[in-house]
């Protein structure tokens, strides 16, 4: 079973995302910001990371840059998950090394299609 790390400062979003991902037969763990997410990755690299953009402490961009420099940090597929839906924002996220981009609000079908896109469903 593949592991997905859910990174979001909103406990509600983390809960909803985990429930959807578990419905798609993923194991999940969570972190409330980029720093906590890095600590989770040091314990064990997940197969994919659902990553919020705006977070206190360390935001999604900073986390992504730090992740990719870690040993084994190139491996996880990263799906940016945010309310930002401007073309420029999305393009920047992809350019920074995200594999996919999901806009809130989302449902299970959308989540499934994004994880199909990165080859995990």
């Amino acid at each position: 079973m593949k592991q997905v790390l859910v990174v979001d400062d909103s406990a509600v979003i983390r809960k909803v995302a985990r429930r959807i991902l578990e419905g798609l037969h993923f194991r999940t763990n969570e972190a409330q910001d980029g720093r906590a997410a890095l600590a989770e990755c040091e314990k064990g690299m997940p197969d994919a990371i659902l990553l919020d953009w705006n977070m206190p402490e360390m935001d999604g961009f900073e986390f992504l840059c730090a992740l990719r420099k870690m040993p084994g940090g190139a491996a996880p597929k990263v799906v940016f998950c945010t309310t930002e839906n401007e073309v420029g924002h999305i393009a920047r996220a992809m350019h920074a090394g995200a594999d996919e981009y999901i806009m809130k609000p989302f449902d299970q079908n959308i989540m499934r299609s994004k994880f199909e896109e990165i080859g995990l469903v």
Partner: protein
Amino acid sequence: MRNLHAAFPPPQPVGGAGAVRPSATEGSAANVAFDRFRRQLAALTGIEVAADRQYLVEARLAPIMRARDIGDFPELLRRFERRESEALVREIIEAMTTSETSFFRDRAPFDVFRDQTLPELMATRATARRLRIWCAACSSGQEAYSLAMTLDQSANALRGWSVELLATDISQTAIDAARAGAYSQFEVQRGLSTTQLLRYFQRQGDGWRVNEHIRARIVFQEFNLLSNLDGLGKFDAIFCRNVLLYFDPETRRDVLARLSRALADDGCLFLGASELAGERHPAFAAPGSDGVLRLRGRPRPQLRLAHAV
């Protein structure tokens, strides 16, 4: 707007295509009225509604009743029966034929089209350099745009080719929506990769719109699959996915026979996954492992490889 009765012939008497006879045990006036409705809808659209689905039909038609201030369901059916207005008949047909769709639905058929069908067709048409593709029930346009995006991926190989992509649907509302090419954030997230979204769409208000260079490749047109296909000419590939399953077996056979005649000898028909559920049609060979239907007696063309000696 085209003449309704040209597109939708008047209902046939019992025994016509898709006819459903009321059973002797169904006594109530409401059941009889619903049976007549099912029979007429089948004659007009080929769509078969099961006898126990009255509540679903009522739910689908409720917005029309509210908008037109029609008090009860039998009254709506009476007005439909006597073809009270072209608009009413059209609204009812549209409410009954709307189906869910998404970009690159099921994905595999588009991969097969890109990786097998298109190279095969291009190999056998290398002189004429002309392709005609028909998306035969395009609904709100996602399948047609998925095909246009798939063709765009082969743009280099298709340079200098004339590629015609026709997209039709029985519903004028669906065709209007398809032609506009505007989708909500929810819709663009289903089936489209972010790379495709950035490449083929632009933001428009709260949603997204297909870029002009993709929209311009598709001709959208209202068309009933039960009407005469002869005027459309021959196609090299036809997508008619998740449509036949709504038809009764007799109508399904009839539509398949007519689609077979609209297909080039070595053309391909794409249906929905296991849509025929084991049924065979005399015009078509059994589907191969790719699930694509080809005409019987027309072997799959050999793929000519560039390095072949």
